[in-house]
């Protein structure tokens, strides 16, 4: 099994709901312990997050486009964050989920150094490394309704830009969509075999300059008016 996320860069609107839902669920999760906040009500609030959304502009005006880019653990099949860990705290489960055993971690940061995606964050309060659990305490919880046994970020997404599934199963929704729409993994050249897939964004349509808009409007008005006048 290779459980992971499929993220549609075409429909992600960058609302950060996934990141908030992740923080909310995992703050009270027993898998990693609390997600510490530093000065939550102070002048410079900061804290541990497993999922962060960044925003990029691609292409040059007028053919430019905003891409909202959620980034969390890729649950790499060949993860260096696991192999560099000296204590055995970092491990990968048979279902593909990469986790940190909070009881074994000594907070050396080496796994965070080995991760190119910035998926691991040290909790300064507990002194241990924390990361996305793929909501392992939701997806197997039989007390939840079957449709709720998904990561919190997936359930929270208002545009359904996030899907959860098994990438080892070619018939799964995530595998089919990734195959149909050219889903790609990030930085495959590092050889970590990331499992999460991103669906590429749509081609940007050129943004019109003001004079083009005016010309279009005039032409549009003329074309609207001409059938009336000619009648």
């Amino acid at each position, binding site marked *: 099994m290779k459980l992971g996320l499929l993220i549609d860069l*075409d429909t992600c609107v960058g609302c950060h709901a996934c990141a908030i839902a992740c923080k909310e669920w995992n703050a009270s999760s027993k898998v990693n312990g609390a997600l510490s906040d530093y000065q939550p009500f102070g002048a*410079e609030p*900061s804290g*541990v*997050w497993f999922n*962060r959304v*960044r*925003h*990029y*502009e*691609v292409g*040059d005006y007028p*053919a430019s*486009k*905003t*891409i909202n*880019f959620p*980034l969390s653990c890729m649950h790499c099949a060949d993860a*260096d964050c*696991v*192999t*560099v*860990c*000296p*204590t*055995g*705290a970092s491990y990968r489960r048979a279902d593909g989920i990469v986790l940190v055993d909070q*009881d*074994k*971690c*000594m*907070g*050396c*940061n*080496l796994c*965070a*150094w*080995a991760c*190119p*995606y*910035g998926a691991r*964050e*040290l909790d*300064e309060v*507990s*002194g*241990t490394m924390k990361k996305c659990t793929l909501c392992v305490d939701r997806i197997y919880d039989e007390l939840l309704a079957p449709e709720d046994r998904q990561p919190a970020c997936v359930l929270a997404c208002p545009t359904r830009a996030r899907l959860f599934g098994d990438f080892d199963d070619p018939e799964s929704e995530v595998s089919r969509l990734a195959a149909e*729409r*050219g889903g790609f993994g*990030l*930085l495959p*050249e*590092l050889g*970590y075999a990331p499992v999460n897939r*991103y669906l*590429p*964004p*749509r*081609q*940007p349509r050129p943004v019109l300059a003001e004079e083009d808009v005016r010309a279009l409007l005039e032409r549009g008005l003329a074309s609207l008016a001409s059938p009336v006048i000619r009648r």
Partner: protein
Amino acid sequence: MKPAFSLVFFTVSSGAGLGLLALAALVDLFAPGSLPAQALWRGALLGLALLAAGLTSSLLHLANPRNAWRSFARLRTSWLSREATAAGALFAVGAAYVLRVFGDGAGPVRVLLGLATCLLAWLVLVCTAMIYASLKPIRQWHTRWTPTNFLLLGHWSGAMLLAALACAYAPRAGAFFALATALGVAALAGKLAYWHAIGDAALAPTLERAIGVREGVHGPAPISVAHARLLDVGHSHGTFLTREFGFVLARRHAGALRVAVLALGFGLPLAWLVAGAARWQPAIAAAACCIIGLLVERWLFFAEARHTVRLYHGDPRT
């Protein structure tokens, strides 16, 4: 990378100690008698002390040191685990070797202990270097010049300490000066080659590569060659990632610090080796100068390393 002083001190101190241990054992093995026993055991003990000081400093880098005892668990894959284990073995073997030399014992036991001390010192040095060199997301570390530098610089600073010991105890210090000079020139060459290698940004990953826009978009004309830039980083006041990986070193500062490394770490000690007085006072000053230069060198090693995650924070390339 944030230059954590605990790690800067650790790698320089243990590097000098390991170089000194290896060289002292080699001198004992291949040129017995050229260094009196009282210099030899003092040198080996100083090497162990420098290693112990470095390892203690490295513990300060841990956010949760009470789990440090677990770091022997992943010998099969983790260079940090290998380093911890090899260092532990070196303490046992090195201490036995110091006692053997102190007691002026001779024979095969001393030879075996000396050989094991030398090999273990090399092993620890290689493991330390490979912790950094094995990290693929850090282009400036993931190069063969990293272990080359750690080995050469450890032996260079160790040779300076050995030269100081020779000035104080040995009847003739000339051979030790020649050894240190050769190692110093080699280490300098290695450092210059490292700086040359990391200066080549041709293969550096780019922001476009990191967010995969070069994988294409769907629609009529691909923007596969599109230029990308950060609009918003999504957080307001810094994160673990910006604190750990966001360190920026101004280029002019990097230049000045490189000059300081060349002058303190190599120039002045080499000048003393070639032209200085072979007395122990200037010898200790020259060794200290070398180690201060290497502290600056190691600080730069961290400060100039640019982690791939910086691309997601808006750096156009690493």
